[in-house]
């Protein structure tokens, strides 16, 4: 019996999200996690464009990608300044 057969759907979702570092994102990893999710959306969007199907899903994926890009830029812009090495 495989691991996925033994798990309930909730446990599987929990594991998938934990492995992706998305259950509780570490405070210094938001930009990285946004980039990871963007990559997944880009892969899916490319598939939808290649098969030329799912116009609604394609639009929705493109919109989500735009949202993630906007969030990434803002999160990076609001990032705290790294400590000045001369003061260390």
């Amino acid at each position, binding site marked *: 019996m495989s691991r996925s057969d033994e798990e309930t759907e909730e446990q599987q979702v929990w594991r*998938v*999200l934990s492995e992706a570092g998305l259950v*509780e*994102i570490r405070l*210094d990893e*938001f930009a990285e996690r946004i980039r990871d999710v963007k990559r997944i959306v880009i892969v*899916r969007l490319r598939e939808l464009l290649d098969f030329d199907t799912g116009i609604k899903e394609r639009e929705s994926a493109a919109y*989500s990608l735009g949202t993630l890009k906007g969030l990434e830029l803002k*999160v990076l812009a*609001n990032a705290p300044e790294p400590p000045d090495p001369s003061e260390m």
Partner: protein
Amino acid sequence: MKSTAKQPRSEANWPPEEGELVSFKTSTGSETAILKEVHWGLVWRDFILEDGRVIPEHRISGCPQRRVWRKIDEVADNEREECEERLLSMAGCGMDPRKRDQSFWAELNQYLAYTYLRFKQAECKVQDTERRRIDRE
């Protein structure tokens, strides 16, 4: 005021009610606070405290092991779009997701988890279909 801090709740009387004292894990240990409301996010429930902090259900003491999470297709398009607008607006106002247990932190966490599940599952379905097609050939 009722408390969930000393007596663990069972699945039958979960979640705690508004005005109850709840205890929860923090990065430094454990704390208690008064529950203002329980709110469904895109994936899991968030417990909003009277002091404004937002704590995911799985960090509240007494949370049943069998978690109740939403399925991706239970989230309507307009709910997702409203969430996206709120997040962009919060980011635009200069709010920082690195402030743990605040609303932007909580909502961005859930949005990223939801978006990951949504597109990762779609990708897995495509791979399954492709695998079945290759198996047939």
